[in-house]
């Protein structure tokens, strides 16, 4: 039997107290009892609801209200878990009242209800992250609101909250509800060292921390921390791409979905290396492409009227070399010490494209090298730089072609342009060096795969889960491939002929169609990956300069000036924002949630679903995967009147 009620706009501050009121009087809780009378007395069925986010938000307000009134808690909680706890408390509240007033535990009451003619619906709420095992509550039902004076008396109820979900804890531990005491009483002598020794991060370290222990024994330090075995589920396991889609959301797949949890502690700041994403190489991309642009501005005949000196190029090039060295060394350290984290980044559907970024940055450095440093680069350098790109390409394009989980129709997103643009940059460098066949090879491969990617992204297939719904700076990557391709083709052919012009005009069109929508680029959280999105603008500027040297008139010169200015201004603005975040706000490297997702849905989630329901938990999990992440799955027990 199906029920349907419309979700009214009434605030739950009026609704819930009435529910509690009615529950107290053992009456039907707010559902049509005509239906319930007609139901067969010996069956129990499930009704599942979807409560909109608005309701949940209003719940939170309501719960704040309760919080402010005379509800006492005897529990140690982290401050930011307060609201979640209250959520849980109120729902358990309702549970207690929904059952027969036998003061039973929730599990037993659900069993008893199954034997009787009750229709029960269960509620699932986001899991708790508590540091305590049990919650003892004293509540006054009057606190449920000012407009429910009928509720009187206090009920002392005991609630068994969910045991803690520990970062990296095994299932046994959570089920048994043990609190590993040592974690709470770690003496904080040297925070950094403790962080390093913190065994919660072991699962992300190379060989689960054994490398570190080896190194520390080599250095002669005594082993004094207890050896904790890392959870077995993290060793050498491949996270399926579906897991990333289920757990994360957002245009860069960085934000955790509400009902998900992560394997590392959320409230602590993780070790710096763990927080250092591969998208940091985007900074190198942005700065080195600026160096190329200033070199072209200084050396092209059509822009001589600007009187730019080559020193700008020299300075920028030295800065980018330095930056690249710093970023590369840091990431190398991360590879050595936290290989698991690097692996998880590789399996992330968006971050995998950034693995091309270091090599593209090196190619940019080679293209933008000032004449004073080196005039002629050796051919072997090209082969050395292109080999990693070639190997990565074989892997990634092969994944696209052979179907399976990571096929293109599923994972296509604008960041994939990074995997394609490397071909064109390599072709450009090779042609500049004077090579003939190699550049054509990479140009051909890049062109074929760019066509596929371009069509797929324009299609916005419904099976595509990673495409951001709104405009986001990542869309500027669309401009990258055609502009670099036009320059590469011009270099291969010797002149900026029709093929290059075709590609250049496509790039220009895409640039303008994004530029007129600049109003829509609002409300996004700054991240280091934004640096990678500036190099297409610089690339478009460089190809405009090249075009203006071929077709030299006022329009093209003005265009090259405008685009170069826009690129420079953007990079400067980004630089200021980065410095702001690094030194003032100190959140340039936030906890990297994207790599810390658990490999399966939390067990407590399933427990909620199983509670007093005869529906399948699997359905609920599937429904959790729906794209409307704002809606929650809620089931509420409905009780037949005890007449």
């Amino acid at each position: 039997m199906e029920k349907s009620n419309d979700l009214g706009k009434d605030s739950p501050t009026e609704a819930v107290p009435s529910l509690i009121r009615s529950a107290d009087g053992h009456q039907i809780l707010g559902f049509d009892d005509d239906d319930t009378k007609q139901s067969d007395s010996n069956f129990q069925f499930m009704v599942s609801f979807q409560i909109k986010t608005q309701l949940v938000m209003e719940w939170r307000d309501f719960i704040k209200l309760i919080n402010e009134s005379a509800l006492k808690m005897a529990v140690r909680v982290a401050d930011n878990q307060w609201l979640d706890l209250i959520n849980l408390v109120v729902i358990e509240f309702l549970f207690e009242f929904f059952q027969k007033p036998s003061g039973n535990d929730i599990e037993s009451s659900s069993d008893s209800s199954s034997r009787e003619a009750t229709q029960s619906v269960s509620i699932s709420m986001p899991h708790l992250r508590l540091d305590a095992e049990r919650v003892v509550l004293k509540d006054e039902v009057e606190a449920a609101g000012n407009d429910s004076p009928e509720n009187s008396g206090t009920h002392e109820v005991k609630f068994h909250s969910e045991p803690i979900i520990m970062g990296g804890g095994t299932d046994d531990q959570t089920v048994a509800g043990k609190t590993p005491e040592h974690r709470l009483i770690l003496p904080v002598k040297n925070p950094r060292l403790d962080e390093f020794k913190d065994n919660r991060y072991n699962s992300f370290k190379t060989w689960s921390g054994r490398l570190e222990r080896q190194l520390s024994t080599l250095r002669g330090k005594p082993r004094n921390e207890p050896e904790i075995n890392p959870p077995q589920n993290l060793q050498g396991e491949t996270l399926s791409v579906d897991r990333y889609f289920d757990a994360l959301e957002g245009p860069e797949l960085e934000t955790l979905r509400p009902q998900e949890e992560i394997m590392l502690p959320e409230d602590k700041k993780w070790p710096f290396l763990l927080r250092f994403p591969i998208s940091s190489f985007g900074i190198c991309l942005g700065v080195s492409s600026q160096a190329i642009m200033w070199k072209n501005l200084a050396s092209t005949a059509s822009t001589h009227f600007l009187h730019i000196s080559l020193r700008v190029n020299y300075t920028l090039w030295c800065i980018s070399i330095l930056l690249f060295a710093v970023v590369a060394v840091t990431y190398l350290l991360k590879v050595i010490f936290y290989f698991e984290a690097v692996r998880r980044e590789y399996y992330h559907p968006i971050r995998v494209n950034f693995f091309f970024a270091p090599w593209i940055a090196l190619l940019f450095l080679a293209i933008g090298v000032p004449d004073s440093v080196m005039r002629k680069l050796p051919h072997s350098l090209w082969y050395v730089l292109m080999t990693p790109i070639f190997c990565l390409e074989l892997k990634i394009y092969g994944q696209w072609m052979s179907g399976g989980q990571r096929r293109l129709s599923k994972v296509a997103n604008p960041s994939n342009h990074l995997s394609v643009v490397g071909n064109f940059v390599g072709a450009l460098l090779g042609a500049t060096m004077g090579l003939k066949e190699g550049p054509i090879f990479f140009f051909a491969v890049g062109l074929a795969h760019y066509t596929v990617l371009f069509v797929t992204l324009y299609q916005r297939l419904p099976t595509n889960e990673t495409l951001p719904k709104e405009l986001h700076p990542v869309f500027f990557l669309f401009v990258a491939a055609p502009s670099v391709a036009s320059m590469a083709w011009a270099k291969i052919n010797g002149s900026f002929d029709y093929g290059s012009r075709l590609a250049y005009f496509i790039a220009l069109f895409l640039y303008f169609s994004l530029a007129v929508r600049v109003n829509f680029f609002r409300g996004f959280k700054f991240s280091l990956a934004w640096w990678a999105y500036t190099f297409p603008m610089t690339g478009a500027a460089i190809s405009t300069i090249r075009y203006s040297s071929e077709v030299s008139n006022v329009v093209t010169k003005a265009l090259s000036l405008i685009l170069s200015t826009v690129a420079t201004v953007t990079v400067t603005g980004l630089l200021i924002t980065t410095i702001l975040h690094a030194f003032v706000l100190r959140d340039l490297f936030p906890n990297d949630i994207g790599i810390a997702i658990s490999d399966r849905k939390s067990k407590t989630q399933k427990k909620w679903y199983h509670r007093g329901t005869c529906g399948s938990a699997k359905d609920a999990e599937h429904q959790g995967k729906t794209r409307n992440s704002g809606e929650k799955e809620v089931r509420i027990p409905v009780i037949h009147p005890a007449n």
Partner: protein
Amino acid sequence: MVHPEIGLEVVIDSSITKHHKQPTTTIGRKQSAIKTPSKRSQQGVIATINAGYFRICMSLGGQALLWKTLSEKTDISPTFGNLFTKIPSTAFFLIWSLAVCIFVSLSILYILRCIFHFKMVKSEFHHHVGVNYLFAPWISWLLLLRSAPSFIFPHKYSYEYVWWPLIVPVIALDLKIYGQWFTTEKRFLSMVANPTSQMSVIGNLVGAHAAIKMGWKESGICLFTLGMTHYLVVFITLYQRLSGNNHLPSRLRPVFFLFVATPSMAALAWKSINGNFDMLCKMLFFLSLFLFTSLASRPVLFKKSLKSFSVAWWAFSFPLSFLALASTAYAQQVKGVTANGLALILSTISVLVFVFLLVCSTLKIDSLLRNPVLSFSDEN
């Protein structure tokens, strides 16, 4: 009794339908018509063979063309030239005659199948993989035509007389299949696309290649355009893999090598239109080379299909022959040690694979004939 102030929207969730489940219903129905091969073995060879067996003829034709091209080479650098000129042209003639014999016998068997088991042929026509192999006989004929020794066609117009009856079925099949891709609801390209869809493209390109040899440039260009346009569409659709791997049985994985065959054939066709191996040909050749490297570095993909010998193994051979042909044309244009070395390596691989397959087929001819990878039923 308190009625609620809030209403709750109830959504009864039926089973989750995945996106690709609906389009495959028609195909699934067709697949249910396929019976297990063990039943087939009682019904004789005619009922067992299907158009997929013409892969053997295509491979033979491709090899014959390769040997012919190699034996005609005159301007390879001296170090490699000696190797190639030592190959007697009688070896080429042997392969060619073998190809003709096998092709004639297979054709006779297939004609008998059309006569006695027409319903099977019909169900093959409706199958999303089987229909593409209906191009295979005509491709084999065209390849044999193209690689025929010069004394077979003494008369000037005899070549054309043979070419026309071969190209008409290709065009007819083209019209039917390409039209279905974007008009008929049940057989949209997004639903039926699989690597064998490239067979139609290869058919057009081989036809174009053969036409240019006759001197009919316009029809050659026409067929080339037809092939390339649909190649673009098929390439993109296949790379997107809209419906995943569901449509191709794992024993048919060797047909992934068709990805290698098509660009090579396109390079050869464009070369014959243009006269020399220019930029577009080079780019197509490089694409083909890249795809070959990509597939060769993924042995896991082919593990299941390599467990037992079947006619699908022949799908490895002719793409390699086409790739070797394209590499020899490339080496001819770009003279240099690397290019010639590449041509030599690819030709060697192609010949070795071909010989290996010939030997395996002769030894295991029984399992070859009794074990088609796809079987089609008599019922509708």
